[in-house]
């Protein structure tokens, strides 16, 4: 209370953003101390999405763990499984067929397209540009439909498996991928043009959320946040994996160091992803799509990394020679970008807070990973009953007796 009085005397307000707030798509809490409209101090509290995925993996065999890992994040589900599969394959000494590498590459780049389009929409929504939000999400549907056809689901594609991929790409599907690439390229060029010319967009994005190259080094930011500060941190180039051993990636960097730079990097990265998909579809070799994988891993530990849409994703597996991992540790890309968040927020206006938070493309689930994975089914029912009992009590206190009304039991 005294704290509050002090704040009031100094004309300071503490604005809680989250855990529930329209600008946050997942729960996270930001306590913003305001001086007028200016952010003076920002405290980041995360951890609302801790689901215990790492613990869950320890009590499951590798095949089960793969699907748990896929659900670390809804958007970069492919990147996480790819990273996990790579770690497994490295430890098991598996040689993945070339065709599988290509299919993984295509899905990975499609995922990058879908993730960045999603980001562009969310960012546009945060700054109140709902029309752009609708357009990008409409175009994202094209990619999602493709991914649904390739993997069999819109979000958790389940394409990867140990030693290869689960589904092959038919020639017809590859034609459709190229077709969608053509459609999207035209639209993306339009958005890139828009980002460069639209006054209100530039006014809202330029010069806010600055993270200079020195800050990037200090807080070890990854992905588009680092690349927007001109630092070439791309795992696809630094440590080429899979298909990127054969196909060179142009790393997109920008020197704005702010949210605008991150926008430009992401838009240009989408164009680059389209270029890569075209090359991959043209060069995809014939052959098997997977090799048989063992159920048990030899003793050892491995670190594997992949360039997820949001940045560098690192997985650690330690095996004790059984069919269950001894320890799994997922360092999701967003986790690396949180450290600089307070620094990015401080000194800017309250109006900039949502877009600065959105600019790192935060994935709270990724950061927090996993405690209770499997509901026991009873919770839900008791909760319903409790809610109903409470509401009956409430109505009774107001002189109405709804208990006599027969409600269909849900």
């Amino acid at each position, binding site marked *: 209370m005294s704290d509050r009085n002090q704040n009031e005397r100094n004309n300071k307000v503490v*604005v809680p953003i989250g855990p529930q707030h329209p600008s946050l798509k997942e729960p996270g809490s930001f306590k913003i101390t305001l001086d007028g*409209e200016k952010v003076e101090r920002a405290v980041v509290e995360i951890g609302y999405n801790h689901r215990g995925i790492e613990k869950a993996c320890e009590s499951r065999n590798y095949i089960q763990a793969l699907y748990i890992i896929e659900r670390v994040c809804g958007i970069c589900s492919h990147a996480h499984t790819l990273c996990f599969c790579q770690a497994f394959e490295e430890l098991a000494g598996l040689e993945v067929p070339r065709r599988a590498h290509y299919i993984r590459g295509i899905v990975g780049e499609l995922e990058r397209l879908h993730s960045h389009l999603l980001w562009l929409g969310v960012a546009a929504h945060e700054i*109140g*540009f709902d*029309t752009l939000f609708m357009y990008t999400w*409409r175009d994202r549907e094209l990619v999602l439909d493709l991914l649904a056809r390739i993997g069999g689901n819109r979000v958790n594609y389940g394409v990867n498996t140990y030693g290869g991929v689960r589904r092959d790409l038919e020639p017809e599907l590859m034609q459709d991928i190229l077709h969608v690439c053509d459609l999207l390229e035209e639209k993306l060029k339009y958005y890139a043009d828009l980002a460069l010319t639209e006054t209100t967009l530039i*006014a809202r994005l330029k010069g806010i959320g600055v993270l200079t190259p020195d800050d990037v080094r200090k807080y070890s930011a990854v992905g588009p946040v680092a690349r927007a500060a001109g630092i070439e941190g791309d795992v696809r180039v630094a440590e080429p994996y899979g298909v990127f051993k054969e196909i060179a990636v142009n790393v997109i960097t920008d020197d704005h160091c702010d949210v605008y730079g991150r926008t430009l990097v992401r838009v240009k990265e989408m164009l680059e992803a389209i270029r890569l998909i075209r090359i991959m579809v043209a060069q995809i070799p014939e052959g098997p799509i997977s090799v048989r994988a063992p159920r048990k891993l030899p003793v050892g530990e491995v670190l594997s990394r992949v360039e997820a849409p949001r940045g560098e994703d690192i997985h650690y597996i330690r095996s004790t020679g059984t069919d269950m991992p001894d320890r799994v540790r997922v360092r999701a890309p967003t986790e690396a970008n949180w450290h600089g968040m307070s620094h990015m927020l401080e000194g800017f206006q*309250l109006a900039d807070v949502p877009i600065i938070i959105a600019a790192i493309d935060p994935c709270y689930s990724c950061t927090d990973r996993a405690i209770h994975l499997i509901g026991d089914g009873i919770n839900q029912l008791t909760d319903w009953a409790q809610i109903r009992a409470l509401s009956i009590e409430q109505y009774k206190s107001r002189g109405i007796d709804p208990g006599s009304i027969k409600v269909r039991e849900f």
Partner: protein
Amino acid sequence: MLLSIFNVLVFPGLLFLGAYSFVLEFVDRKVYARMQSRKGPPWYQPLADMLKLIGKKVIVPRNAQKFLFAALPTVSLAAVCAAFLCVPVWGATAVTAYQGDLVAVLYLLTIPTLCHFLAGYNSHEVYSTIGAFRTLTQMFAYEVPLFMAFLSPAILAGTWSISGIAAFYAVHPLYTLINLPVFIVSLLTSQSKLERMPFDAPEAETEIVGGALVEYSGRYLAYFRGTAIAELTAIASVLAALYLPFFTGIAWLDFVLYLAKTFVIVLMMVLLRATMARIRIDQTLKFFWSILTPIAMLQMIVNLLLRGGLGL
């Protein structure tokens, strides 16, 4: 006597205002949706939303001053209704036309904004307080260019009555072209007055969760929503009367023209709303004070000179 009561209450007064506000809100939402390549709401959606809101429970914050909390929505709705009565809809003269009603309308239209501010301040909640102060800040930004933009055509016409101005430009339709710059200014300032994109920083959903009205619920929120859409209708009507006054002299044809003109103005507003990002409150201030105010001021001077020069 009976006729004037009918005029005030039913047509072209309050009932018409209500019905037409729903129509304009539907147009606003539907066109906005179609521009975003969405399907958009069915025609009865605005009415359904309103009825649903009215049926909801009202929750009054514990710290709020109860009477003020309940009175503000009604006051703001009443002010907008009163303003609408001064605008010519059927025929060339409004229901209540008098010398100086333009100024009265301007002040009446300020009341909802002040009510928003008071509502936000009275809610004693951090988001609503920030929203309230943003509302007030924005009001200081747009009031000056808005007043000057509304007064410029009046100066040229030499009358302070909206019906009089409309009548003047009906005789001299080409003079409306002179007012084109202030027309654009007034479109932008009305957008800001209505707290719509790109000037909706006071209620920015993704920053301060709806701003001043965040604690409002139930029928009080419904009244505020009603105020917003009635304000849209009133402002569109005023703009139509001031800047697009073409008259045929036949009452029903004028009414059709009035509908067409307000439609066009609302469409322009939707286009503004659909194609821009929300700009920050400091940018709004800068934009209004450094760009729109000089334009409006210049126009006023030009109109004064023209009035003298043309010898009207």
